[in-house]
């Protein structure tokens, strides 16, 4: 079965999840082509072991995001089963490419088993669904759910020029407050809730994040109560779904809608003064303490590492 991977890009380079897509594709067998929209990350992609070909897809339409135009330009270069990341962009492209190729799409898969059994969380993680599907199909994969392929490949890079008419004009870019890493890209996240008391106390979370290279997230109560905490930081049902290796929840009660966005994190640490807070039900390591007491010590201990 031929496999086409839609490279996930970050800035002008490759997003690390692309290596995981290649790792997952390896188990399916068949030659792997990585398609780099706008040519971004093409040389990095050719380094990934297991990749047989990289298509550096260049065209005017790749200057800004328009999933209709991108998918039209990409569908003709996509052979066989198509794999993308389950990022918002990956999902949108995956769905459009599927409909243009006349094949089904299965989103946000966390496990691929023999016989093409795809498992994915549904009902906000309150259930998991396993489906069987025969190729070709489009599948998007959840970040950090698959082993990353190693580097050391040497695939040929072919440049293809293909574009399509763009219908979305970007008028203005509104940058995020601060330069912080986005929660959906981070491997470690420290999030604060209403228990942080006021938004300026998030500086303590920033301090911890700086030490361990984490992104800072928030509960909806924090986002809704304080203007300084943007919605882009919100984790949960109506915020972002995250899947980091470590999630530290500080002053967050653990409402079902918050858990929906973070319960599949590999390890969860909770700091909460209420021993009965539901967040302790999902935490691997719970610390019953106020953040005022716990965070200084956390900073100190992490600083020692």
């Amino acid at each position: 079965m031929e496999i086409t991977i839609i490279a996930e890009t970050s800035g002008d380079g490759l997003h690390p999840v692309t290596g995981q897509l290649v790792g997952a594709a390896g188990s399916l067998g068949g030659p792997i082509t990585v398609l780099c929209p706008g040519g971004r990350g093409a040389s990095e992609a050719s380094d990934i072991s297991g990749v047989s070909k990289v298509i550096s897809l260049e065209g005017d339409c790749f200057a800004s995001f328009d999933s209709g135009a991108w998918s039209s330009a990409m569908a003709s270069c996509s052979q066989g089963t198509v794999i993308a990341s389950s990022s918002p962009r990956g999902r949108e492209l995956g769905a459009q490419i599927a409909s243009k190729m006349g094949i089904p799409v299965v989103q946000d898969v966390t496990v691929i088993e023999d016989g093409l059994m795809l498992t994915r969380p549904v009902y906000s993680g309150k259930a998991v669904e396993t489906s069987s599907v025969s190729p070709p199909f489009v599948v998007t994969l959840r970040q950090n759910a698959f082993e990353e392929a190693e580097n050391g490949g040497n695939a040929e890079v072919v440049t293809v020029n293909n574009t399509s008419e763009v219908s979305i004009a970007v008028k203005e870019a509104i940058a995020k407050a601060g330069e912080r890493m986005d929660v959906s890209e981070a491997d470690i996240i420290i999030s604060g809730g209403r228990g942080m008391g006021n938004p300026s106390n998030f500086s303590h979370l920033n301090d911890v994040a700086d030490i361990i290279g984490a992104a800072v997230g928030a509960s909806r109560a924090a986002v809704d109560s304080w203007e300084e905490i943007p919605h882009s930081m919100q984790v949960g049902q109506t915020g972002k779904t995250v899947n980091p290796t470590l999630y530290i929840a500080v002053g967050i009660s653990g409402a079902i809608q918050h858990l929906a966005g973070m319960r599949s994190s590999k390890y969860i640490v909770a700091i909460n003064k209420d021993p009965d807070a539901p967040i302790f039900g999902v935490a691997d390591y719970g610390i019953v303490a106020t953040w005022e007491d716990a965070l200084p010590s956390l900073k100190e201990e992490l600083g020692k590492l």
Partner: protein
Amino acid sequence: MTIAVLLKQVPDTTAKIAVSGGRVDQLSVSKWSTSPYDEYALEYALKLKEAGAGNLVAITCGPQRASKMLTDAAAVGADSMLHILADTSEMDSEQIQSILAAAIRHCEAEIVLCGKQAADTNSGSTGPGVASRIGAACVGMVSEVEVEGGSFSALRASSSGNERVSVSKPCLFTFDKAATELRRPNVKGIMMAKRKVIETVSPQDLGVEIGDSKVNIESQNSPPEKPPGQKFEGAESVPIVVLKLREEANVI
């Protein structure tokens, strides 16, 4: 001009999800609601209607119970309602999209609003897939849209924050959470809605042959239980937890 909003009825996000016989037990769902992002799509569809962009039709594909959601939409101002009566629970992306695309054509809608993902499937396939089927531009992850002359201005999430974009019809917007109040029906609206008739059709009525699903659901299960965590009292335990994160979990 016609504006369409796609609404899906899902178990309320606070409802418990039980599994029996390898499927989520629909009968045990205590409360059904409009999928959360669809509510924002509806709110902005109403704003577009009020700005004179056209008549608003609320569309759903689902079982009989889903009609309540359409009546609720009419109570806050949707002009008409289309219910495609079908069980979508085992449908694949192509099947549901072909039905909804046909429904949009049937209503001659050129502006479509929907949720970025449904709270049951959690997919995010339908909006982009439908857009491609009806030949509309797809603007994803939108949290605001307004009429701007003959076109539309929308705020969408981008990798570096937000972007304001401009797009002309035919277009489809998939909605994220937005910073707006959702309107609730008042008595007058509810009375008016009762007099409105829901157009109820089958996929066949729309000329859609849905065929077989290419994605077969083998099973739905409860998520695997995590082993119980370890709980420590007091800030004195922070060094222990950090040590465990390093040595047991190996994550820092």
